[in-house]
């Protein structure tokens, strides 16, 4: 191996090295914290520069008993008109400490806000931050004002709240729907031109609905269907990318990826319809969607992880990002790649592996089994799942960075705990890919409810740079029950809060 290659390896390793952390509480900090008595889980993170400060905002499913809008009986759950799971917390010191922000108040027309958070700061004016949640419209709310049990028959769209102070306070901005169909998931992105995007799956129709506002004050309208010849199975994920960012003006592209049931013959090239769980991706550019590309092997969909005496439900099992140069900034062929980590299963264990595409999706995508925990490339034991990927694209002389995290049980494959590992999705100058998985978040006792719910997904976000350095810094949020697992009931558990860990 050439000396320069070793240097890159060591650099990537150094970026990834460090001790496992117990993180910083985002919610449930102490008994005086307004979030202490409630449960918070399932996160999305934004970063905004507001009034000369960096404001990091974490959106989460916020079950706040002070609302008195959700009751549990011995057999069911009752949700009252006015209930809101749309909560958030924010930090003004780069994640060193957090303040509970509150929850968004529903409207008369959309009387319940019900989780699956997504959040993004405007790339144009970061005082504007947008956050979305699934929602129940008035037309699907029982006349009694109460919903017993499942909300699936009642959710009929999503609501988007807006902040104009960097993500410290929010108010409802607009609710979106398509004939009040059930929506699920939630993913948001923004461009430096001020475009705001919000994506959901219309589950009953197997379709992704992507909503677009041309600027921070515009109303959201629906874009054309990105995958009209495919049946989509699970939450969409969207990202915005900028090719040749350091060489000229931004050239905005929106990317959407998701797991399929199947597609019409020929929709993805060839005669096959695609396998359940294969991930496909498309690009919206100059007002049009391109041709979808296959982005993965068959991935695991909502796998349930069996722990020693409990189970853990999971959510979407893929994460991608766009537009960062490879670690070798001189290799133009690898600039602006799209890189992904996703989860696979052989029925015995889960593992994470990688894939990548050209930025413009002008060719088929490729496997990158060297990223993640792929058997044969790594000797991990137990399950690895719920990956996250985030890129800092680099700018002028500031180097780019690609990082990934995943949940792992390799420290105790038969136990009740999970930990989080992290590493760089690195590429040698000769094109060889590699990832070193470092301990990141120390083992956490899983304390889900009896269904296994402990937050279906979390976020990994670029939050700025190390002090006096050009090293990109990232923040991973996660569910934390270290305050004690005192209750595991059918529909809820305690203590369930959110913590964060930043690196390097």
């Amino acid at each position: 191996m050439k000396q320069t290659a070793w240097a890159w390896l060591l650099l990537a390793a150094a970026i990834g090295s460090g001790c496992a952390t117990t993180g910083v509480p985002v919610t449930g900090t102490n008994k005086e914290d307004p979030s202490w008595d409630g449960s918070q889980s399932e996160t999305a993170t934004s970063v905004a520069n507001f009034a000369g400060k960096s404001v990091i905002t974490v959106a989460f499913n916020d079950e706040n008993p002070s609302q008195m809008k959700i009751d549990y009986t011995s057999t069911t759950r009752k949700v009252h008109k006015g209930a809101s799971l749309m909560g958030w917390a924010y930090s003004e010191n780069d994640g060193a400490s957090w303040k509970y922000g509150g929850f968004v108040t529903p409207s008369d027309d959309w009387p319940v806000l019900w989780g699956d958070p997504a959040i993004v700061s405007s790339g144009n004016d970061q005082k504007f931050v947008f956050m979305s949640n699934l929602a129940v419209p008035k037309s699907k709310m029982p006349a009694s004002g109460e919903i017993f049990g499942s909300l699936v028959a009642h959710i009929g769209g999503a609501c988007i709240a807006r902040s104009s102070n960097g993500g410290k306070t929010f108010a409802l901005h607009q609710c979106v729907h398509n004939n009040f169909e059930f929506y699920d998931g939630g993913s948001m992105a923004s461009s430096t031109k001020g475009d705001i995007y919000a994506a959901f799956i219309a589950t009953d129709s197997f379709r992704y609905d992507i909503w677009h506002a041309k600027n921070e004050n515009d109303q959201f309208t629906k874009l054309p269907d990105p995958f009209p010849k495919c049946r989509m199975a699970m939450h969409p994920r969207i990202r915005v990318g900028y090719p040749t960012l350091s060489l000229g003006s931004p050239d905005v592209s929106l990317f959407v990826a998701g797991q399929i049931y199947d597609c019409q013959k020929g929709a993805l090239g060839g005669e096959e319809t695609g396998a359940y769980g294969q991930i496909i991706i498309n690009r919206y550019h100059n007002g049009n969607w391109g041709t979808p590309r296959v982005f993965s092997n068959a991935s695991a969909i909502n796998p349930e992880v069996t722990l020693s005496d409990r189970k853990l439900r999971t959510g979407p099992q893929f994460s991608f990002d766009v537009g960062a140069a490879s670690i070798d900034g001189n290799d133009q062929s690898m600039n602006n790649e799209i890189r992904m980590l996703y989860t696979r299963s052989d029925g015995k264990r889960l593992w994470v592996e990688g894939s990548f595409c050209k930025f413009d999706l002008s060719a088929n995508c490729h496997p990158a089994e060297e990223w993640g925990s792929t058997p044969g490339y790594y000797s991990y034991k137990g399950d690895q799942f719920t990956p996250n990927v985030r890129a800092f694209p680099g700018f002028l002389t500031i180097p780019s960075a690609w990082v990934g995290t995943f949940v792992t049980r390799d420290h105790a494959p038969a136990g009740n705990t999970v930990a989080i590992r992290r590493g760089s999705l690195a590429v040698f100058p000769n094109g060889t890919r590699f990832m070193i998985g470092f301990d990141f978040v120390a083992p956490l006792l899983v304390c889900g409810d009896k269904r296994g719910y402990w937050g279906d997904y979390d976020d990994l976000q670029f939050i700025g740079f190390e002090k006096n350095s050009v090293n990109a810094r990232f923040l991973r949020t996660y569910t934390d029950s270290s305050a004690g697992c005192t209750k595991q009931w059918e529909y809820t558990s305690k203590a369930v809060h959110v913590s964060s860990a930043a690196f390097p």
Partner: protein
Amino acid sequence: MRTVVAILCVLMFGCAETRRMEPLPVPDREKIPDNTGYVQNDEFVAGPPLKGLAFAPSEGNCAPERKPVTFTACCGGSPCNGHCVYADDGKTTCSCFGLAGGCSQGFVCSKVAQKCVKEDEPKVK
């Protein structure tokens, strides 16, 4: 260069409790998962359906009444509390995400959970 390497080594190994997982020096080809049908010439392609998950259309009018965001179907002339799949012989049969025969009474085949769940299972917190 030596100095850089030394500094980086300190950074890498300075924490005794940190565990690293490096790639194997040489990939163990026997353990690498099979990608046949989904990767050709190192490129992803649309693969064939997974075993037991070759989704088939519902045909006829025998599908049971459906709750929102669930599957019911009419498979091979029989009502199905789930969706149809193609069996090995090419005929359509009832399933719910690999559970042959579909869901039992009191359960629905959920498009959200993508498995059989109790009829009134709350989906999210």
